[in-house]
């Protein structure tokens, strides 16, 4: 699985994603600087990492989407390559309109850094195949603007098409207001596009992929992707 981690000015989880893909998962991984372009065929997986691209100065993710590398990301998206946006990467995907909706600042206006419980609601995606439907996993969040918003129609559509992948919940899997750290509509923590190749999520799977960090729930996401890609390669290879 050939992986790319895009480096926007202000990205800061780029090295963490690189570490997991390359050291933990053992996959060939490259950084792509925001001023560079690439071809859709260059990578199987493209990661838009967390951070504060352009300082999040206008709106989180608003400026990054105009970088040259994002043109290539758009083309790769069309070509069906797998793309995951984590935290700021999710915000960029929303601003780039690769995913519907928008992000607002957290409802209590504070940055939140702690572990959350998530219910995995859709396991029929390239990113979540190794989870069980309805399973409760634990991942860290670290964001100031993770308050997902979309109008009622969009939400209805997302639900109807089973595109809400992760929701904030409590330890036992109840999706409640009390378990919602940022005010997101319907406790949404991660969604996927209609074609099923672009995932955006606020929690950080790359921060929960090694035993020493206290949780490996995030590693299964990367393993799911690997399984999907390798399976496909094998089929195409024949």
């Amino acid at each position, binding site marked *: 699985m050939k992986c790319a981690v895009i480096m926007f000015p202000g990205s800061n989880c780029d090295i963490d994603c690189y570490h997991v893909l390359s050291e933990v998962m053992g996959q060939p991984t490259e950084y792509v600087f925001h001023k560079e372009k690439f071809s859709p065929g260059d990578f199987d997986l493209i990661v838009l990492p967390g951070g504060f691209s352009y300082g999040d100065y206008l*709106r989180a993710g608003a400026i990054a989407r105009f970088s040259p590398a994002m043109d290539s990301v758009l083309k790769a998206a069309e070509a069906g390559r797998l793309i995951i946006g984590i935290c700021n990467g999710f915000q960029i995907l929303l601003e780039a309109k690769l995913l519907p909706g*928008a992000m*607002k600042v957290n409802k209590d206006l504070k940055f939140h850094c702690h572990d959350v419980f998530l219910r995995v609601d859709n396991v029929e995606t390239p990113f979540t195949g190794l989870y069980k439907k309805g399973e409760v996993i634990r991942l860290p969040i670290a964001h100031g603007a993770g308050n997902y*918003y979309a109008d009622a129609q969009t939400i209805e559509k997302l639900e109807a098409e089973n595109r809400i992948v992760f929701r904030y919940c409590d330890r036992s899997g109840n999706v409640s207001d009390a378990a919602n750290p940022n005010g997101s509509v319907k406790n949404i923590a991660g969604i996927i596009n209609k074609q099923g190749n672009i995932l955006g999520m606020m929690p950080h799977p790359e921060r929960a992929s090694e035993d020493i960090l206290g949780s490996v729930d995030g590693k299964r996401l990367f393993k799911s992707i690997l399984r999907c890609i390798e399976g496909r390669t094998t089929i195409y290879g024949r």
Partner: protein
Amino acid sequence: MINARIHVRFKSGVLDPQGTAVKGALKQLGFENVVDVRVGKLIEVKLNVEDEKDAKDEIKSMCEKLLANPVIEDYSFELSV
């Protein structure tokens, strides 16, 4: 030279977390008459353009492309020389 003052704010119907917080604070300070508060952004742009219509078109395009996010935000602007 034309100066543009662009206001960007949440669309009505979109909950504004900052506005809500400010409203709460104002009430606590005794400003009982406060009914609603919306917090937005003011962006000032200096344009090297003479014609007002050109300026208008350009600002509008800026707003739609970058300065406002139409999913959650509305914008308005005024121009001055």
